[in-house]
């Protein structure tokens, strides 16, 4: 394992680690978003519940889930550490800053956006993951996951929090997606613009889809 030590020690190693864990989380988002989007079949959650059942019980998925949490934790801890550490590299701040003249605000705010996402994640996990894993509400058949969602999203502040979370996610991804490739050393005059476009597209589509779920349920657009 010694040869992987650099992923936690050197500046470039750490960003490679952020990149790898980030890409894994992106792939997770794709699956998560895909499964959840099944509510839009508008069939009273039938297909969605089936998919949720599969995801919740399949041993391979459950194993990957462990990995997901490990990567998520690394991404969070390393991210927070880097945010704090980088901020200390300039003790005397500028009297006047360049604003957005040389970079986008969200690329400079990954720590902040990530922290917002973390707060959102705590709420989100508390709402669904904890209940479905550690109680038998879902598995015991008292309530389907779909019904649980309907119940949770009846609260307006929850919907607002989720929408805010998704906005944070969109900006976090707009920078994070393409940045992950740059960190891994993938930069090419032909492909980098493509990666950037795909990244922006991904960030917007995934975030809008996620945000649409609580909104749609709250306003009973899906039944």
């Amino acid at each position, binding site marked *: 394992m010694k040869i992987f030590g650099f992923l936690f020690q050197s*500046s470039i190693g750490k*960003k490679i680690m952020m990149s790898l864990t980030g890409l894994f989380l992106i792939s997770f988002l794709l699956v998560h978003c895909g499964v959840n989007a099944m509510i839009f079949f508008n069939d009273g959650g039938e297909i969605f519940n089936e998919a949720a059942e599969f995801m919740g019980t399949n041993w391979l998925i459950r194993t990957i889930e462990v990995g997901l949490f490990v990567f998520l934790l690394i991404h969070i801890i390393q991210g927070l550490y880097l945010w704090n*550490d*980088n901020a200390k*590299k300039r003790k005397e701040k*500028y009297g006047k800053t360049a604003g957005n*003249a040389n970079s986008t605000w969200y690329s400079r705010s*990954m720590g902040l956006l990530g922290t917002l996402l973390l707060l959102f994640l705590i709420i989100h996990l508390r709402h669904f993951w904890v209940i479905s894993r550690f109680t038998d509400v879902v598995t015991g058949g008292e309530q389907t996951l779909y019904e649980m969602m309907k119940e949770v999203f009846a609260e307006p502040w929850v919907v607002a929090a989720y929408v805010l979370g998704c906005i944070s996610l969109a900006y976090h991804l707009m920078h994070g997606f393409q940045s992950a490739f*740059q960190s891994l050393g993938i*930069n090419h005059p032909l492909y980098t613009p493509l990666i950037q476009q795909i990244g922006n597209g991904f960030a917007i589509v995934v975030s809008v889809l996620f945000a649409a779920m609580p909104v749609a349920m709250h306003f009973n657009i899906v039944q």
Partner: protein
Amino acid sequence: MEKGINVTLKVWRQKNETSAGSFETYKVQANPDMSFLEMFDVLNEQLITEGKDPVAFDHDCREGICGMCSMVINGRPHGPKGGITTCQLHMRSFKDGDIIVVEPFRANSFGVIKDLSVDRTAFDRIIAAGGFVSVNTGNAVDANNILIPKEIADKAFEAATCIGCGACVSACKNASAMLFVGAKVTQLALLPQGKAERQSRVVAMVNQMDAEGFGACTNTGACAAECPKEIPLSVIATMNREYLAAKLNGK
């Protein structure tokens, strides 16, 4: 007579590395054809004649190549125009009545020596750690013995045009030096002469860069946007790639 513009300067004054600094305000009448540094010459002559301490700033060639001039002007290293150094900035880029905030390049690794002068010797130490080809004088073969395609030579040249001014560090919110280091790593990794040491070089340079206390890159791109020689962000990607390969190879 001469067309002149009046500007108000808010200049960072700091006696030495350990003392605290603050902004001082000065009024200067400038000619639009003057360079920004010539405007500072005028200010300093004024200050000396008034018996005050002139503003210390680094400068030497005044044609944009030595990399000695610095200054963050209205929040931007080398001022508002892209692709030039402070000495190439002219007062015609400003309007009558402008307020211009002038600060030193700020980073923990660039200590302030006085006013706008900073210590950039960390860059030298990074080069000393590995930014070279280990070839003693007299060891060379004929220059045309190893052919280098024009495209490769041009790309290496593009990276090699770095003037080591430190604008990248000063623009980066993390005070990261990766554009500077990436430029040298890229130049030497591209050329056949640099290939023998490419793995040990990138590791040694990155280790030194970290030891000097520069921040980590978060790919905001501010460095490349402010680089007076327009070194592209791709040199950082190249460095990341080189570094990853070297590390996975146990270097």
